[in-house]
């Protein structure tokens, strides 16, 4: 038998298609399905959250008690609590608990609303505020989150997302990181609207408490001055850019005809 060497004509073992196209098709499909399920579950959370009783919420809040276990300066905390009490006394809605403030030693300039009526203030924030009114604005902003149930909604949605993604892709896979990351960005947009709503709500409450809204814009302007990151970095952030918040707030104050008067200074806080 003779052997005549010749090259194979074509390779049937590989398929000449665009893998890139296949990738976008599959990734898009997954993303669409996840978004649909997530939106549906998110709406379910929104439906349940306003009906949650204060008792259940307080039990939920118990899970976070570790966050404010080692509180900072007790004296300062008491003074902030007095400002908070002043605000809650004119609050339109009663939730059946006393709002508590916790001062936590941390350089972060931030405050949190936790389930069960607890507000955590990081001590870094006190370096930025100059007056009682500015601090009151921060507290009123957090009270706004309570009034809109944002603190529970955010909790519920994040839980839904995490549960879904880990169920489909497993705990440590890169696919689940990717999907969680991209959906969190959608979530951030949602939360930016909530932040703006909380800002406006806070201004209303301040006007009711002090008769004017001095200090509210000052605080956001101070934050805006400290902020080095560009507007682009804020596209995927939980909060809108401070200068945008200032703009929205100023328009709202003019719209409502609120007065801006001298703020009450904070002595040694």
């Amino acid at each position, binding site marked *: 038998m003779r052997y005549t*060497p010749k090259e194979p004509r074509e*390779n049937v073992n590989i398929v000449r298609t665009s893998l890139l196209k296949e990738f976008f098709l599959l*990734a898009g499909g997954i993303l669409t399905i996840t978004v649909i399920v997530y939106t549906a579950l998110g709406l379910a959370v929104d439906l349940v959250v306003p009906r949650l009783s204060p008792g259940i919420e307080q039990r939920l809040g118990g899970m976070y008690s570790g966050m404010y276990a080692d509180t900072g300066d007790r004296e300062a905390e008491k003074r902030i609590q007095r400002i908070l009490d002043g605000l809650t006394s004119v609050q339109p809605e009663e939730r059946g608990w006393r709002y508590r403030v916790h001062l936590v030693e941390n350089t972060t300039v931030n405050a949190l609303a936790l389930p069960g009526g607890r507000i955590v203030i990081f001590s870094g924030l006190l370096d930025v505020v100059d007056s009682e009114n500015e601090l009151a604005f921060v507290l009123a902003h957090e009270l706004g989150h309570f009034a809109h149930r944002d603190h529970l909604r955010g909790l519920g949605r994040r839980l839904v997302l995490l549960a879904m993604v880990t169920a489909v892709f497993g705990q440590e896979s890169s696919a689940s990181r990717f999907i969680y990351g991209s959906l969190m960005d959608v979530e951030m947009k949602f939360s930016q609207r909530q932040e703006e709503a909380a800002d406006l709500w806070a201004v209303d409450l301040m006007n009711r408490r002090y008769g004017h809204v001095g200090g509210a814009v000052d605080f956001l302007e101070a934050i805006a001055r400290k902020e080095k990151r560009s507007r682009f970095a804020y596209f995927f952030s939980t909060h809108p850019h401070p200068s945008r918040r200032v703009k929205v707030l100023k328009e709202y104050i003019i719209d409502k005809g609120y007065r801006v008067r001298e703020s009450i200074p904070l002595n040694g806080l």
Partner: protein
Amino acid sequence: MQDLIVFVVLLSLGYFAGTMAESRHYRSIRKRERELLKLPAVTAEDFLDEGREIEDVRLVHGSVVISIDYFKRILAGLRNIFGGEVKSYLTLIDRGRREAILRMKQEAADADIILNLRIETSAIGQNANRRKTIGSIEVIAYGTAVTLKK
């Protein structure tokens, strides 16, 4: 956000580096296949001309380990959800088998024919046989090289 950036960077790095490495490998495979075309490698166990005297018989083998790139691995992961042909692994297997045969042929360059060719593939590396993923594959090709008396 950071996770997303890292993921996209890895994905595009995997895609471009993987595509480049693949087309370079295929060019090299085709070139060497042409060069070694005169040496047949067959699966038959007995394929000798009657009456020709045998000078030398020996075992020859060639093996290669090839890894898949990040992009193709993710694509295969997505495929795992929907089902269907995992096209992103086809070139990996094809390259591995052809490269292993080429290396085997190189080892038997002075022989006249390679009989009883066998090819085996196994998954090796950190993820081998776990979590339904393939990290890299090892392909080994072996056969009996026969040299005839001139």
